[in-house]
């Protein structure tokens, strides 16, 4: 009773709660925080507290109208958060739902005494608890108080100090420097000699190094722990990394629950978890990582995260236990036993989920998008996304997950991965597989990799089977045999029921079977169905079937005899409150209600991330509001779309044609929605069309007319709309000939691109030859497209919704950067500020023609080039684009909602003003170069940003400044360093340089820039390139924090001076110094700096701009 009373008191006081988001998606801090923030907002809403959200990530679901009372698209930095606190006067604040960004911001505000001053209560774990987990020494001290072990080690500033520590600990040891360039000076050492060498190098790079005992090949185990204010506590889930200690959890293949721990180990570590969380007095959720010696039961606590994390998002999806939601409730004063289990609605939230399935997570990397990145993985995170697969055997889930990655890999073999080294790389799993295919032993692989034999034995079993399958096919078609033949010892020549059953249980795809037997995928499917080999539907219910689930969180498996009947969805679901009463009434009347399947976007990766999740979630919400039974398929644990209450049914499944077909057949008479999940579902359009599936929206034939370059080109010619000359070519000779004809520079890209894999600009035939090699690597089946690269052109995007060929709504945005920077890396302005009205009119007219010709019925996006009063079409997407959330939230019209209604046949009309706005929205890219050692941060035609933010302002400059501040830009105060390649660039930036000088900035410049500026009487100090070996060198200045901002423009036409340029850029990234590499961006920045001070940036919420 007393609990209840307390809680009511707390809640009465909590009128208004501030929630900090995590900002743009970046490596190490991605979509999982949209999930956790959204759940926190949901919990607040249920309690009737007014939620104020600060998050500049406009593509997120949490920044949608329905969740928070007020949203500030402002940087999550102490300055802006303090301003919002002053303006809003909230009485509580959530720090643990916005990742490290929110946590760090909160700690800084606490240090400045802001919370105390504003009488602001930090909800959940206290700041003191957080501090302990953030400070290594403090943490070690606290844990020693309860006799819990942490890695032994110490910190040293000199070699002598280091040697003393080394002596005490004994070898092998791990050296880590807090700040290491390119991983120099980190690593394991086995003896004194190696130790001295490594330490010496490390101490040159950093003032202090950490020396730790080296726990080689120890297992890494994580627990997700929850505790309430009364001290009730549970572990929701444990997870085991397949990769041993030393590989970052974000880089590891992870399984849940742990597979190789026995009862003693499982519960021993669990008990320690509870002890630690109790000692640290966490209220809410925390994650604890252990190292476990595989040879005995020795352990270390590696780390505690006193906040929601990537692992907690994964654990939520893996178990069905809504960790973030519960953590929010606990922070609001509830106790665990008071809360109900959201899946069963009858049992308690104080329990530990029992899984009756296995889950595997595999990270998704995009390292090939970075020039200079290494494939090696280790203690730092480089992956940009992840997938999660659910099934009832390890081979089944591993194979599902491999396909979910959308890298083109199917099965474990059949790729050309270099398997000579067993190093930890992004492709190690496949290297291990190839080694097994060559007959290597489990023991040897274990010794080399530290991957537990439990995993290796099963991988070997899969490889053995796959090898047998691949040997089947010796060209030509093979008959399908329906008779039940035992599998012969040699390669089977006929597809039998047994082989197919075994293959499916081991997780192999129909596609792979088709290849093995030389038949079509469809033939395999028909054979399977004829023999009753179909996957079965199972529930994730948190209690291993002990109690019935009221939700429909589903997966498919071949390890099952029966499919479960799914409970009556819409009316049974907890989130019935989301559906209007009318919708429920109409449902009750109409027993044959409609169904729709929304395909999600799969793993986050460069070019496709949270923006498509927003689109899918918004679409699903609209469908449900229309009374349509809504089904989502997705496989990304970092998303909101995979919350089981986001749709009436969630299939946490692959987005392959095979799996979509399985679900389509299970969910009879449903229509598919392919237009909101980005390129992955879009790519399935033709297969679905050929299979005669019902598809909502624009017909797949027309999608094909837009996606097929030849067809689209003919269509544009017919419509008299210009495009850059292009040709699709298969041979290098032809490519060179064509390039000569249209003139350099030319753009090279493979057909069917997503975020322009292997796109490049060639300025000469030598360039072209060089790049064509890498382009043909991307896809040998598809020819390469060469097109004229138009220099100095403006890029314009139009996002819109069309209704049966009639333009219903559109938004025209302009890129700040000229063409040549990938649209995903560009800074985008809405409404356009520097376009001629004539250009706008031309764009609109061309769009109208295209939309009509293709009878577009739903969302679309067209990219244009504009130069010298002419426009050209770059490409058309017949789906919602990356910028849909941006244009929807800036204009105040929800494009996805409208598109969904249009696709359902609803007739919409209206006059939508998207151009004459009193404010400006600017979308800026977020880069994660600091995470990718050695990567060149220069912007190119290839996309490399990992996320985006968008901010509002009364003018372009204000919105731009806020936006770049939100991506981590720091306002320069004293000095700017200019290094500008090429005469034209120098001239272009002359005005800006003058401006900077008159603003009082001390200007540094390298040789030619220095001369140029001097000639134009701009005072500046010459600095030397690193290669010049003279002082002051650029490196010295950067290292000594003498420079606040670097503008480095490279001459795109030549590679001259590029090594020096690369070193400057890379050092900026490593030293955390703001860097601009584009002329137009530099101009806009300088103009913004000259017109605005930080105090001029208005603290206005979204609704104060867009009503």
């Amino acid at each position, binding site marked *: 009773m007393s609990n209840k009373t307390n809680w009511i008191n707390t809640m009465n006081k909590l009128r208004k709660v501030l929630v900090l988001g995590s900002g743009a998606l970046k490596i190490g801090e991605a979509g999982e925080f949209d999930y956790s923030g959204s759940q926190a907002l949901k919990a607040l809403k249920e309690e009737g507290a007014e939620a104020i959200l600060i998050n500049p990530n406009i593509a997120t679901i949490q920044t949608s109208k329905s969740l928070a009372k007020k949203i500030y698209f402002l940087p999550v930095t102490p300055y802006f958060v303090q301003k919002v606190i002053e303006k809003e006067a909230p009485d509580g604040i959530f720090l643990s739902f916005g990742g490290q960004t929110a946590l760090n911001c909160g700690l800084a505000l606490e240090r400045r005494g802001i919370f105390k001053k504003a009488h602001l209560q930090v909800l959940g774990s206290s700041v003191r608890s957080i501090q302990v987990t953030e400070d290594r020494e403090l943490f070690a001290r606290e844990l020693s108080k309860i006799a819990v072990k942490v890695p032994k080690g110490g910190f040293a500033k000199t070699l002598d100090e280091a040697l003393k520590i080394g002596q005490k600990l004994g070898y092998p040891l791990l050296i880590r420097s807090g700040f290491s360039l390119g991983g120099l000076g980190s690593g394991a050492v086995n003896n004194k000699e190696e130790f001295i060498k490594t330490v010496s190098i490390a101490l040159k790079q950093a003032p202090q190094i950490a020396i730790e005992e080296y726990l080689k090949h120890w297992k890494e185990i994580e627990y997700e722990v929850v505790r309430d204010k009364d001290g009730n506590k549970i572990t929701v889930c444990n997870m085991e990394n397949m990769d041993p200690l030393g590989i970052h959890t974000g880089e590891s293949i992870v399984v849940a629950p742990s597979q190789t721990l026995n*009862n*003693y180990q499982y*519960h021993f570590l669990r008990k320690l978890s509870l002890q630690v969380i109790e000692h640290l007095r966490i209220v809410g959720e925390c994650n604890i990582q252990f190292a476990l010696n595989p040879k005995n039961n020795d352990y270390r606590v590696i780390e505690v995260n006193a906040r929601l994390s990537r692992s907690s998002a994964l654990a939520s999806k893996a178990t069905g236990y809504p960790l973030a939601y519960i953590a929010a409730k606990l922070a609001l004063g509830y106790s665990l036993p008071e809360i109900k289990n959201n899946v069963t609605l009858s049992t308690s939230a104080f329990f530990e*989920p029992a899984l009756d399935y296995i889950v595997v997570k595999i990270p998704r990397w995009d390292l090939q998008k970075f020039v200079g990145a290494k494939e090696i993985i280790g203690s730092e995170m480089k992956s940009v996304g992840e997938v999660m697969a659910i099934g*009832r055997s390890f081979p089944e889930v591993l194979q599902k997950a491999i396909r979910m990655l959308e890298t083109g890999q199917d099965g474990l073999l059949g790729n050309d991965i270099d398997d000579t080294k067993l190093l930890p790389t992004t492709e190690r799993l496949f290297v291990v597989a190839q080694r097994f295919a060559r007959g290597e032993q489990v023991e040897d692989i274990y010794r080399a990799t530290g991957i*537990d034999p439990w995993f290796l034995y099963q991988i070997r079993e899969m490889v053995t089977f796959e090898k047998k399958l691949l040997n089947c096919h010796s060209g030509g078609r093979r008959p399908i045999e329906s008779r039940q033949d035992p599998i012969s010892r040699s390669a089977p020549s006929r597809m039998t029921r047994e082989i197919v059953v075994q293959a499916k249980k081991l997780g192999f795809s129909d596609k792979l079977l088709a290849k093995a037997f030389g038949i079509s995928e469809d033939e395999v499917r028909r054979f399977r169905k004829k023999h009753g080999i179909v996957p079965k539907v199972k529930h994730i219910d948190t*209690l291993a079937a002990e109690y*019935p689930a009221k939700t429909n969180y589903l997966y498919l498996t071949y*390890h099952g005899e029966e499919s*479960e009947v799914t409970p009556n969805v819409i009316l049974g679901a907890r989130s019935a409150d989301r559906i209007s009463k009318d919708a429920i009434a109409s449902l009750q009347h109409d027993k044959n209600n409609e169904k729709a399947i929304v395909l999600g976007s799969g793993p986050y990766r460069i070019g496709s991330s949270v923006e498509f999740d927003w689109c899918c979630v918004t679409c699903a919400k609209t469908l449900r509001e229309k009374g349509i039974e809504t089904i989502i398929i997705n496989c990304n644990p970092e998303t909101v779309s995979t919350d089981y209450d986001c749709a009436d049914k969630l299939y946490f499944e692959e987005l392959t044609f095979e799996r979509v077909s399985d679900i389509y057949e299970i969910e009879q008479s449903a229509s598919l929605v392919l237009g909101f999940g980005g390129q992955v579902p879009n790519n399935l359009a033709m297969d679905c069309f050929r299979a005669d599936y019902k598809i909502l929206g624009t017909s797949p034939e027309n999608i094909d007319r837009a996606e097929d370059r030849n067809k689209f080109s003919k269509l544009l010619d017919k419509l008299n709309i210009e495009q850059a000359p292009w040709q699709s070519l298969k041979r290098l000779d032809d490519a060179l000939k064509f390039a000569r004809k249209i003139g350099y520079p030319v753009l090279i890209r493979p057909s069917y691109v997503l975020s322009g894999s292997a796109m490049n600009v060639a300025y000469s035939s030598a360039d072209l030859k060089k790049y064509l090699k890498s382009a043909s690597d991307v896809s040998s089946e598809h020819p390469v497209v060469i097109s004229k690269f138009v220099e100095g052109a403006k890029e314009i995007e139009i996002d819109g919704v069309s209704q049966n060929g009639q333009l219903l709504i559109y938004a025209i945005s302009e890129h700040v950067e000229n063409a040549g920077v990938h649209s995903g890396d560009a800074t985008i302005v809405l409404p356009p500020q520097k376009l001629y009205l004539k250009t706008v009119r031309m764009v609109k007219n061309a769009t109208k023609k295209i939309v009509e010709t293709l009878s577009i019925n739903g969302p679309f996006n067209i990219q244009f080039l504009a130069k010298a009063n002419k426009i050209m079409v770059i490409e058309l997407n017949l789906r919602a684009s990356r910028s849909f959330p941006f244009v929807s939230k800036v204009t105040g019209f929800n494009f996805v909602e409208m598109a969904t209604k249009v696709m359902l046949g609803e007739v919409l009309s209206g006059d939508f003003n998207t151009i004459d706005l009193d404010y400006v929205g600017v979308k800026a890219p977020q880069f994660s170069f600091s995470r990718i050692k050695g990567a060149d941060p220069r912007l190119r035609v290839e996309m490399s940003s990992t996320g985006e933010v968008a901010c509002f302002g009364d003018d372009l400059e204000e919105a731009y400044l806020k936006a770049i501040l939100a991506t981590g830009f720091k306002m320069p105060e004293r000095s700017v360093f200019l290094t500008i390649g090429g005469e034209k660039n120098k001239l272009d930036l002359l005005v800006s340089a003058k401006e900077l000088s008159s603003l009082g900035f001390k200007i540094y410049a390298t040789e030619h820039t220095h001369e140029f500026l001097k000639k134009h009487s701009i005072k500046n100090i010459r600095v030397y390139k690193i290669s010049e070996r003279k002082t002051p060198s650029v490196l010295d200045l950067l290292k000594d924090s003498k420079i606040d901002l670097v503008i480095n423009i490279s001459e795109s036409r030549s590679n001259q001076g590029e090594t020096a340029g690369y070193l400057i850029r890379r050092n900026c990234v490593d030293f955390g110094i703001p860097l601009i590499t584009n002329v137009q961006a530099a101009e806009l920045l300088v103009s913004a700096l000259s017109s605005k001070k930080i105090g001029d940036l208005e603290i206005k919420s979204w609704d104060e701009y867009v009503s």
Partner: protein
Amino acid sequence: MQGKLVLSDGTVFLGESFGKEVTTSGEVVFNTGMAGYPESLTDPSYFGQILVLTYPLQGNYGVPESKFWESGKIQVKGLIVQNYIDHPSHFESRKTLGDWLKEQGIPTIQGIDTRELTRKLREYGVMLGRIEFKVQSSKFKVKEIYDPNLENILPYVSCKKVEVYGKGKKNVILIDCGAKENIIRSLVKRGVRVTRVPWDFDPLGPAAGGAGGFDGILISNGPGDPKQAKSTIKIVKQLLEANIPTFGICLGSQILALAAGGETYKLKFGHRGQNQPVMDQFNKKAVITSQNHGFAVDMKSMGKDWKEWFVNLNDGTNEGIRHKSKPFLAVQFHPEANPGPVEGGYLFDEFLKYVK
């Protein structure tokens, strides 16, 4: 070899054998724990039962030496799993699960849709069942199935003679109704001398000379319907009258309740798992517990001298009772864990406070 599980309602589940190929029958129950098969299989409370493990992969870490078991042998009559892992990996593993089951003569089937089976048991309640191999689908006869609830099965699982463990000053008599080894380990670890006696041993009777003086009684866990343990109930009744500190665990809790004049009843499908939430009604603390029981104490039947100590947070059933003034206490769950969470261990201390 193909094997099948036939339930008393006629449902047949087909799978593949990986244990001993002998026909068996018993009560089919499911356990939702994700680790701990060696502990569960050797837990005497499973005597007479065919155990279904809901976690789909079993055998992962092999089988350790017998000193880690909960009794000297596998107690279940049969085992049903989804997928058997024949390549275990663990430093303590001495043999594979399959080899162990074969060695101990236990029939086992894998490849069965254990989730569907569990859902069935949940919906219809526990059923009797039979594991068969190679047998042609002869008409199924219910009579052929062994039902462990129809007889007193404690003689099959209890010790045959008095045994003493530990050297402590305090002497606790453990009435062995099929005790898990970890109850003894838990007490010995706390410095207690444990005198383990058979289920029908009367500590107050003339034959009790061997037991010597004792300071408290622990009635152990065990299999079957508590009402079948008539002798034990009678003995406990006398112990309560003698005001001797008494602690009951699981079946021991039910026996204590019956001895105190209360009632027990059969649950639809019982609680078997490691994630069962209970609430301490006295201090309002919630605890995650390990459980394995098919019967429960009916709190309404308990006299006014008894208080409800623990309640299951999922279904509100009784999980522990305590006398208002006398040193009698009992829990329905397993403070000794093995398998399962260990935080219930404090209950041994709670009991030992009375053992002077």
